[in-house]
């Protein structure tokens, strides 16, 4: 079988482009994402969580309203149906971390970078593929959760429709919110490289910052609270806002900045680090 090396190579001797194109790298990263089971598991869990939790909350609320146990005052019907996204974000963020840290963990990164020595192009392609896939999956989750939730609330005449601008913005925003959280996971994965460490950094930034904030003096704390990633980002899926909260798009921008910062740091470092 060893004798066939040269013959097996012959089919390569056809016209080929001179250099690796960004399209080649995108194609490769898409194959990587779609050929591991963890992608489907996390996407499945995220979809199930976002629909099931929203449906549960909406069904219970509809029941309570019908039996006069709950008033519609201050009730955010949109947010109620999108509540499951808060669970889905955990899976999406973990997928973001794993999409890059698993390459470092398995050693696959060496094969990847030996094939594509342009490290920043590789990182950009990976981010683009993961980001687009998350955006599409996130919008599906958000719209599905909204549709099912509002259908359940409609029985108590408490539902809203996408004809309302704020409800449409929040539902579209649901997918954007999940993408921004995914970006934070990806950035942490690219920066920390070790799966356990990157997951800790991701959860720490998303959730534990709130706990640290409690240590600050009250006046300072109130200034900072709206800018914490979860608080800021959730404004995009909220229709009935509390006082002092950021506006929806500013909030989404602030959440995205956390992920952008981590990703930029990783991009600057990737050409300087040994792998």
């Amino acid at each position, binding site marked *: *079988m*060893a*004798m*066939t*090396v*040269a013959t*097996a*190579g012959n*089919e*390569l001797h056809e016209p*080929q*482009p*001179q*250099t*690796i*194109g960004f399209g*080649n*790298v995108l*194609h*490769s*990263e898409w*194959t*990587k994402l779609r*050929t*591991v*089971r*963890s992608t489907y598991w996390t996407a499945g869990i995220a979809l199930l969580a976002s629909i099931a939790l929203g449906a549960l909350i909406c069904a219970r609320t509809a029941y309570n309203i019908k039996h006069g146990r709950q008033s519609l005052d201050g009730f955010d019907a949109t947010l109620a149906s999108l509540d499951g996204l808060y669970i889905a974000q955990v899976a999406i963020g973990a997928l973001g971390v794993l999409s890059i840290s*698993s*390459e470092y963990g*398995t*050693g*696959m990164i*060496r*094969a*990847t*970078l*030996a*094939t*594509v*020595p*342009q490290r920043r192009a590789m990182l950009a392609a990976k981010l683009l593929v993961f980001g687009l896939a998350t955006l599409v999956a996130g919008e599906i989750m958000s719209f599905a959760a909204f549709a099912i939730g509002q259908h359940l609330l409609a029985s108590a005449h408490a539902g809203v429709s996408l004809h309302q601008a704020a409800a449409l913005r929040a539902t579209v925003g649901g997918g954007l919110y999940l993408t921004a959280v995914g970006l934070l996971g990806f950035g942490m994965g690219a920066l920390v490289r070790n799966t356990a460490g990157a997951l800790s950094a991701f959860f720490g930034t998303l959730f534990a910052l709130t706990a640290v904030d409690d240590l600050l003096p009250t006046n300072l704390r109130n200034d900072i609270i709206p800018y914490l990633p979860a608080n800021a980002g959730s404004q995009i899926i909220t229709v009935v806002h509390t006082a002092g909260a950021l506006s929806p798009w500013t909030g989404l921008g602030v959440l995205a900045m956390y992920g952008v910062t981590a990703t930029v740091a990783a991009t600057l470092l990737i050409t*300087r680090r*040994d*792998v």
Partner: protein
Amino acid sequence: MIEATDLTKRFGSTLAVDGLNFTVRPGYVTGFLGPNGAGKSTTMRMILGLDSPTRGSVTVNGKPYGQLRRPLHQIGAVLEVRAMHGGRTAYHHLLCLAQASGIPSRRVNAVLELVGLENVGHKRVGKFSLGMSQRLGLAAALLGDPAILICDEPVNGLDPDGILWIRTLLRNLASEGRAVFVSSHLMSEMALTADHLIVIGQGKLLADASISEVIGSGSRKYVLVRSRDPHRLTSVLTGAGATVNSTSNVDSSTIVEEQTLHVTGMGHDTIGDLAARHGIAVLELTPHNASLEDAYMELTHRFVDFHARADTTQTPASESGI
């Protein structure tokens, strides 16, 4: 062609690779030998642009790795076994590497066949044995039909069939005019596979020569002599300037103790002449070259980080490294 110039890598206070100069030429299997921790893998990672040198440089076909236009078509590498995602199938593992380099997917099937994995292409690589993973690593390295192949310890963990297969494959690739660079800490394996040797110890170049030159450099050449009168022959030979060591053993057929002389510093023809001139009967006169193993041990002995203290005898140790 791989060319290293003053290649140096420092990790903290450790000099892992220390001013290496060498060339890997097409058409030969070049063995890269050194004890564990000598800096072989670090050197290979620097060739592939994965680690950056602290000083000096290494080029592939005249260019630093990062400037190669389509690296997979110029150099293929098998760095570590199982450098792959266990959840992906062998086919998909190769496919994503091929796509990144613009290689058509039918080439993936061709290399799977080449390494004998065509029937398990759709199995997850996490379930692969060590030998199958080695074969998959080689398949990935051959995707771009490169003119240079580098392998880090390719026979580690393989069964005898697998070792023979890799050895034959590497020799065939070299005979097709490719440059093959193979690292190993096993001298015995290199003796069978390589044409040329680059030996390093603690990051420093110890030898860069053909197999026969490396053997010739070994000082442990001796002539084995058996004689009816070992004592008189010993005094004759020492008188003429040779160094003689004797070992006693009992011949099982005659139950007679006889002495075997190990003579160094004198050729076998001179020994024969001297014995004839003094009328001493010689039963056996055999020149022994140092084995490649001995030459290697001699070269690297000082550079092995940890080695067992063994009782050293004048007879060359031959079991080490296997």
